């Protein structure tokens, strides 16, 4: 099912200040983003969605705006979790997990939207300093003393797998200026997006230089009944199991009653 669901987030414009040349007055530019809701619910048939975030620049210099020399990068980072990367090799003709590497605090998802291609916004060093972009995320192996070559291989595999499953994504042109001050960022939520607290961050660049960063939190949770079942299963596993058994017995019995031939 290719149900594109647009999780619409309304405009949050704290300050549409008079378009003064404040930047020239020495007041630095600022950036703000706003989410109309701090919660997004997903259902079990969730097939991915687009998340729209609106934002605004404060004290933008109209001249630089007109020349399109402001750039914005918006990132939605999923909750950090330990991840095991396993590698299969051939053994007796079968493909079997033989090697593994554990990484600490890996963001479950990392969705990035930019106004232009990354290399047109700032240089690779700039991204590295900000730890911005999936390639610059620091993925820390649990066993830091391991063979550097192996760690490098598994780090690359981790990124590659996350990208292949759509969890790490980059959208060039995903951020668009609607006016001189106002912008809209469209981010991708993968079908298997993790539930938990996500962090939206926006980075403002001028002429290739990083100026300022802002962030907001967003909780992604399963919809209604499913969220409650999920929480219940995690917290009261045994009672959940007993209830699952009762559901099965009642279903089996009802089936008998409904379909009885005599």
């Amino acid at each position, binding site marked *: 099912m290719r149900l594109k669901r647009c999780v619409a987030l309304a405009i949050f414009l704290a300050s549409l200040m008079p378009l003064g040349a404040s930047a020239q007055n020495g007041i630095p530019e600022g950036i703000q983003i706003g989410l109309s809701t701090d919660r997004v619910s997903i259902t079990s048939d969730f097939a991915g969605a687009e998340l729209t975030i609106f934002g605004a620049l404060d004290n933008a210099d109209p001249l630089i705006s007109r020349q399109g020399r402001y750039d914005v990068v918006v990132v939605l980072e999923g909750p950090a979790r330990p991840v095991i990367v396993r590698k299969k090799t051939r053994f007796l003709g079968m493909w079997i997990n033989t090697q593994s590497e554990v990484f600490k605090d890996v963001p479950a998802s990392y969705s990035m939207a930019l106004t232009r291609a990354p290399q047109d916004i700032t240089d690779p060093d700039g991204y590295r300093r900000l730890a911005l972009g999936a390639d610059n995320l620091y993925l820390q192996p649990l066993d830091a003393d391991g063979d550097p070559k192996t760690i490098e291989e598994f780090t690359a595999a981790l990124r590659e797998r996350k990208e292949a499953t759509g969890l790490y994504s980059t959208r060039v042109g995903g951020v668009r200026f609607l006016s001189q001050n106002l912008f809209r960022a469209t981010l991708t939520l993968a079908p298997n997006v993790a539930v938990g607290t996500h962090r939206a961050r926006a980075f403002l660049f001028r002429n290739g230089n990083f100026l300022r960063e802002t962030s907001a939190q967003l909780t992604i949770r399963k919809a209604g009944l499913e969220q409650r079942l999920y929480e219940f299963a995690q917290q009261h*596993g045994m009672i959940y199991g007993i209830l*699952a058994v009762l559901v099965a017995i009642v279903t089996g019995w009802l089936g008998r009653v409904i379909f009885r031939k005599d």
Partner: protein
Amino acid sequence: MSVNVFVLLAMGGAVGFLSGMFGVGGGFLITPLLIFYNIPPAIAVATGANQVIASSFSGALVHFKRKTLDFKLGTVLLAGGIVGASFGAMVFAYLRRLGQLDLIVSLLYVVFLGVVGGLMLLESVRAISRARGGQTISLRKPGQHNWIHRLPLKMRFRASKLFVSVIPVLVLGAFIGFLASIMGVGGGFIMVPALIYLLKVPTNVVIGTSLFQIIFVAAFTTIIHSTANQTVDVVLAFLLMVGGVAGAQYGARVGQRLRGEQLRALLALLVLAVALRLAFDLFVKPASVYSLSIGGA
């Protein structure tokens, strides 16, 4: 995880239809199908066990009414089953930590489905050719005993007209319980032939007794997996149950119209097909040799 409600209902319905037609629980088909549908094997196994309860309970009710159910034999089997299932759940959790669960689950399925399917196919092909020749044979030869009947600690099972040692009964129960918790099956496809051929239980009480003990072993497995691994998905299981219970009714009607040995040959082919498909996935180079899982330290 993104799933389609109708696919699950259809899957439950198709397996239910087959299980009604052939008189098997269907757990051994549900779990592989869920795996083919990209449900993680750990969840497929635990949810499969939950689904098995519904179909077994539905089936056991019939046998309870017809009094073709040996409670005493079922209870002894169950005692062994609980021990086996507990041990199986521990092995399950250990394999999962090790990252070898998927492999072992697939391997067990390939081996058991391959062996059972192969034997059934041979037997039914022989029966078909014999039927053409006009001969008949009976499965049970009453006077015949084997080494199992010489073991100590004998117990009398009246409903089964049986006087055997409890040791093989407990061992069989434990073995089935172990498989139930690792493979998410009821184990009927092993239990039924074992009861008939090894313990010489009369055919008419075999299915009822097997279903009776499967209900409890599957219930126990479901609770253990839910407590230890949180891998039971009750919504998923419920959809499969609804499809399964409905499908079973129609399957049973179709089954009555087909001849026994033809039915068994068909089931054998189906079982072999599932085994081959699972084996194929083991031996063919995966799209990516790397995989991720949450957890660790």
